[in-house]
């Protein structure tokens, strides 16, 4: 969960049809590419009329999670997302997209606001993880995430979650319990960072590429495992190579998914959400 401050990688790290096979680690690097579009970019390219709301009403306004009313074309929504910066100053202010309890509590407040106004929710996920700091623990990092995950099960409006970059463990899931989970093709979603996993199971963080492979963190793997519902294909060089193309695809997909979900009654919506999460995971039953 160490913040990644823009590892130097080649401007064309992968070519879609290159002879070299794209590894999970290649995708990790693209997902963290310093030029990769972040929440702020989608905000200006996909959404209009953003009305930001601040604060969790208890402690502070966490800038690592941003939210408010917005529109996608005519569709009114509540938009909530992790906000990574575009440069060092922004990244420090936004804590590299690593939210604290007040961030998760603000997100939940806004989800309930969306329910009150009966507008669907779009959550944008891009975080290395929830902030692992003293004051975050002190104020109940675990409780704030647990509460969001639990309450999201009962939110009576559609929720579409989109992973645009890093889906870092509980910090991602804290705003990620959607009726539909979408992922960009070079985004990752993982229970632990490849570095963290490597340092525990391989006893050496430099085995991160092996851990990345083993953890099945790519959109392709997660679609196969029935964790996510849809992959939004990026341009072959990655989303950072063409902001407008990826933004247009994101917009189309969000509009379509919200429209589909709005055709459900509230009861159907909540039942389907419960069934979706009840079915998560693979196990055996020998009896």
């Amino acid at each position, binding site marked *: 969960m160490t913040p990644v401050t823009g590892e130097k990688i080649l401007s064309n790290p992968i070519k879609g049809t290159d002879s070299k096979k794209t590894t999970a680690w290649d995708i990790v690097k693209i997902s963290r590419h310093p030029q990769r579009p972040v929440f702020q970019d989608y905000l200006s390219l996909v959404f209009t009329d953003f009305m930001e709301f601040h604060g969790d009403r208890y402690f502070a306004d966490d800038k690592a999670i941003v939210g408010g009313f917005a529109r996608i074309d005519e569709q009114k929504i509540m938009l909530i997302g992790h906000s990574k910066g575009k440069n060092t100053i922004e990244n420090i202010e936004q804590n590299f997209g690593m939210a604290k309890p007040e961030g998760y509590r603000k997100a939940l407040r806004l989800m309930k606001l969306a329910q009150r106004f009966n507008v669907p929710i779009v959550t944008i996920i891009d975080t290395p993880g*929830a902030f692992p700091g003293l004051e975050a623990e002190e104020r*109940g990092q675990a409780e704030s995430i647990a509460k969001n995950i639990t309450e999201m099960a009962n939110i009576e409006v559609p929720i579409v979650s989109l992973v645009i970059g890093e889906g870092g463990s509980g910090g991602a899931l804290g705003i990620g319990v959607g009726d539909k989970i979408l992922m960009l093709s070079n985004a990752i979603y993982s229970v632990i960072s490849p570095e963290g996993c490597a340092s525990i199971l391989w006893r050496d963080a430099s085995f991160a590429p092996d851990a990345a492979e083993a953890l099945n963190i790519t959109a392709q793997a997660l679609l196969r495992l029935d964790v996510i519902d849809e992959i939004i294909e990026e341009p072959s060089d990655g989303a950072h190579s063409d902001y407008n193309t990826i933004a247009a695809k994101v917009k189309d997909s969000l509009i379509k998914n919200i429209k589909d979900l709005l055709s459900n009654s509230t009861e159907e919506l909540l039942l389907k959400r419960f069934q979706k999460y009840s079915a998560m995971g*693979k196990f055996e039953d020998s009896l």
Partner: protein
Amino acid sequence: MAWYSKAITEKKQQIGSFWVKCKQCRSHIWQEQWNENLWVCPNCNYHGSINAFQRIEQIFDKNTFKELFAGIGPVDSLHFNDLKGSYADKIIANKKKTGISESVVTGHGKIHNIAAVASIMDFRFLGGSLGSATGEKILQGANYAYDHQLPYIVFSASGGARMQEGVLSLMQMAKTCAGVARLNKKNVPFISVLTNPTTGGVTASYAMMGDINISEPGAVIGFAGRRVIEQTIGEKLPDDFQTAEYLLDHGFVDAIVDRKDMKDYLGKVLAYYNR
């Protein structure tokens, strides 16, 4: 030399079978006394680790606990291999070591003659980690409580999500909490007992969502690992950081209850439930 080391090993085993060394105060306790004291140190009140069946025996009225969903167990769906070998092999080894099929035992029984459903985590099985089958059993327990309108108690003891199942283990947080959310909506009580240790994804899901959160003395309860936090902030953390007492001070648990009093405490709480 061989006879000598063999003799030493045998002696150690003999000593080991009579004496237990307390992990906290390091005093030597007679095994018998340790067992009678519910695996709690009589000198310093350190609460030693106990397995799911020991917990069941301590909490439930004699012969009332009936296990449910016992056939649910883990599979190595990602074919996960690390330095020490495959997850599939670890599953077999842990089943053999513990005699249980997952890191949790679910069932229903009576506590001071009041019916309740419970899931009891067992730290011996892969560090009590939350895998798909663990999540399934905890959810099924919640569903059983929902269907029968019985209070649900989860005893947690876990290092967090199970890395060998990747995001599938992360999703168990959402799965178990979906079960808790249904209990909340129907006003069926959910009691969480956080025992040593309860960390990571388990703390950040059902374990913190009790209508009442109870802990045993000294239990480590937290989200991020202590070392990770020390690296982040660049300084040493206070000794009591992430202990049950620290969480009580900060308002995240309702009570710290000694193991010997746990059954009575739960019985008293359950007696308040008028359904």
